[in-house]
């Protein structure tokens, strides 16, 4: 089994890699590999990140890790996927879009946008046993963020394992440029309004993200401990959506406002 397991991990990683860089969505791994489990899914994710860091024949500079994203942080999405915990993915520097600038749609297959709180750490955080108080002390500042999620899997028909393998359906992300101090903002009650082409398309509040965005970061760091990993000073954590996602198309522009944190925006190149 173990040898076959490693083969499966590479096969699934190849499938997702090909989808990402050919621009053609693929069939969900869970459809072809019924025994594909959560551990294997995180192994695929790890393989894909390694390949991106070494470029594997692609042009351009090597990608560098800049942080993590936490996904599936709402009760609604967890119950839809039949799970009771979030998942995480890795953020790379080549996923960054600057605030107010354009995202290149050629790199995206089925993009959707959600507004989130980004944590930027001032010191390392290592689980297990990390509490909300540790997260507060380790956080240097918070920023409003837009996450452009994407799926390499056809029609977003994903299972929990599929999305984990696909780097938690990450695509690109945009950070606002005005830092705030965590203790100055009541994130639980912070309102969120997402506008597409000027119209409000999604609204929510901090409590939508695991009850409080800090809870999501606590989950992440304790989860990473199981992989012998920690969060490093300077890393960025996208903590999870504060309301429903919205679909986007080339030509759209999106702005997220989070009360107390300000706004962040992106255009999708037509």
């Amino acid at each position: 089994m173990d040898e076959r397991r490693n083969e499966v991990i590479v096969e699934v990683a190849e499938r997702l890699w090909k989808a990402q860089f050919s621009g053609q969505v693929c069939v969900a791994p869970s459809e072809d590999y019924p025994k594909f489990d959560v551990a294997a899914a995180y192994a695929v994710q790890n393989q894909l990140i390694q390949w991106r860091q070494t470029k594997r024949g692609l042009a351009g500079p090597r990608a560098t890790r800049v942080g993590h994203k936490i996904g599936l942080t709402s009760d609604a999405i967890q119950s839809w996927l039949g799970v009771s915990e979030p998942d995480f993915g890795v953020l790379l520097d080549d996923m960054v879009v600057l605030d107010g600038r354009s995202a290149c749609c050629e790199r995206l297959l089925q993009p959707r946008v959600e507004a989130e709180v980004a944590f930027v750490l001032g010191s390392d955080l290592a689980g297990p046993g990390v509490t909300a108080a540790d997260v507060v002390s380790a956080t240097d500042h918070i920023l409003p963020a837009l996450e452009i999620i994407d799926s390499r899997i056809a029609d977003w028909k994903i299972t929990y394992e599929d999305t984990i393998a696909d780097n938690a359906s990450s695509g690109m992300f945009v950070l606002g440029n005005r830092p705030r101090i965590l203790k100055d903002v009541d994130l639980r009650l912070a309102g969120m309004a997402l506008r597409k082409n000027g119209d409000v398309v999604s609204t929510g509040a901090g409590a939508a993200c695991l009850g409080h965005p800090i809870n999501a970061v606590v989950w992440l760091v304790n989860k990473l401990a199981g992989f012998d990993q920690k969060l490093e000073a300077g890393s960025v954590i996208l903590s999870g959506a504060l309301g429903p996602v919205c679909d986007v198309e080339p030509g759209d522009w999106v702005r997220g406002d989070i009360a107390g944190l300000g706004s962040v925006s992106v255009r999708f190149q037509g």
Partner: protein
Amino acid sequence: MALEDKILDELATVVDEAARNSEPVKMLTADYPEMTLEDAYTIQRRSMARRYARGESLVGMKMGLTSKAKMEQMGVHNPIYGHLTDAMMLGDGAEISAGDYCHPRVEPEIAFVMGEDLSGEVGPREALSAVEKVCGALEIIDSRYQNFEFTLIDVVADNASSTGFALGTTTAKPDELELGNLGMVMSVNGEVVETGSSAAILEHPARSLAALSAMLHERGEGLKAGQVVLAGGATKAVHVEAGDQVELEVDGLGRIQLRVLQ
């Protein structure tokens, strides 16, 4: 074609009795498919006249269908309004009885208390300048139609499902808050059931107030100083049942609670 005056009177009696006795009735448009929105607002006013005759008094207005999702769901482009009376007012922490309602649901809202009269076609800024204070509110809505079947016109005739409301005791002046994006978290029995933002209310609650002023103006009416305006729900309405403790928290506006008894 508008309904005859006599029929409007009859239908006002039907919806008023249904609300008064919590006894659901067949939707009005089933028998009167030609009923117009104008007719529905006339029925609403005549049903209110019956309430005033029983001693209730008008304390304000409520807006409904203020979210894009709800308007799309009902296939309309404008919100609707209803009238609020003193008999519908509940205090923060009030207890209500499930048996007094047909299909009770609760919505998290932003409420305005008017400091000045407001009428006519006004913009959101002008509308807001007539507001004395803002607070959070829980609105209980209840449809008096059987099987929860109705059209938009039926809802308007049924006073936009108005039933009860509780205002928060924490208040603020409109300019003391980021009124266009207040986080709102509604819990039932300690579990968060809905999260939202005041941005869902026509993108800004002040727009809802301005829209109300414009709609009342069509009938030569306006808002009076001291009246309450429920600007609209920030999330889906939540079904409640006996035993539920409902709590709304609004950023900067504290919390409001209701308990549902048998």
